[in-house]
């Protein structure tokens, strides 16, 4: 998959603000280092209908968590987010 950066955007709204191709307004241009959005397709990982891959990672309390074991047979939501810091 050839992934390109969407560079469409223009200054708009309050001073220093930019509007991207979908009219989202942010204080950053769409192709700023921390804010690159794809122009077209990008990978979205495992498909619907398949088993969620194993996830083992340390949680905020420093404990190792195995997601499938930890959820104890309950349905679950796993959100991949950018960062809790920025």
């Amino acid at each position, binding site marked *: 998959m050839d*992934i390109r*950066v969407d560079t469409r955007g223009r200054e708009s*709204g309050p001073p220093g603000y930019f509007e*991207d191709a*979908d*009219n*989202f*307004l*942010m204080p950053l241009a769409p192709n700023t*280092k*921390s*804010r*690159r*959005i*794809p122009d077209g397709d*990008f*990978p*979205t*990982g*495992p*498909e*619907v*209908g*398949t*088993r*969620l*891959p194993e*996830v*083992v*990672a*340390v*949680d*905020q*309390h*420093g404990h190792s*968590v195995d*997601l*499938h074991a*930890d*959820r*104890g*047979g*309950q*349905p*679950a*939501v*796993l*959100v*991949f*987010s*950018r*960062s*809790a*810091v*920025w």
Partner: protein
Amino acid sequence: MDAFDAAGVKLYTLSYDEADALADYSKAMGATFTMLSDPNSDVIRAFGILNTLIPPDEHPWYGIPFPGAYVIDANGVIVAKFFEHNFGARTGPERLLDAALGRRFEVEPAASPAEQVSVDVILDADRLLSGSIHEIVATFRVPEGQHLYGEPVPDGLVAATIEVDDVLGIITFALVAPPTSQLTLAGSGETLEIYEGDVVLRLPIAQNGRTMEKVDGKRYVDISGRVRWQACDDVECGLPQSQSFDFRIEAGFPVLGDMGPGVGRVPEMNGAAHFQKLIDRRK
């Protein structure tokens, strides 16, 4: 979060942050869900969603994923996933919970049989934060023997749909609809896409921060539009119908970590120190 607990759905987030940053974040925000730390982006890579728009030498951004969410059932099978084209928008909690509970397109049986089509339109949120995707949910009650149309429809018929007035700052996405069934006309042999019985349509919607109106210290957005449909039975078709809706809903910006400005206004999570660590850790 209470809604997730009450429904018996576990919520996990995963990011490339260090565990101590997640600890400070969850303390500051009062987050009770499990936040997973993937500082080397191992899990992100294993899922194949490492954000390759960012080159490896670009600290501290390199290592983040293409953002999205997976919803799994009790057996661990992915039943839905939500990845948005524009990273300025993320799927809101109500959509995730509805997907986890498999209640995207189900309709409670009506107390009494309908005599004509009626539509109930709601917005699935009490509050619309900028960039958080919610849904306008239209539930059509369809009398027995009648049907509505889905896309594509031939000229002269109207497919059931939700339209939102074009307002600067209100963004809509592709309509989400259940699968149609096929009706083949005896005369022409033409096949139509139809909904038999009650049907739920969902229009994802977000606000991008440009349209909020401030009243008495609170912000609001207005969302107006209409649902359209045409009901037919095997013999004849009714006229195209529409019903307007108009929501005024509280709105705002998401609360971010304390990266500098905003002291006293945002929960303190030692953000600047954690950010410095992100910059330094791969040097």
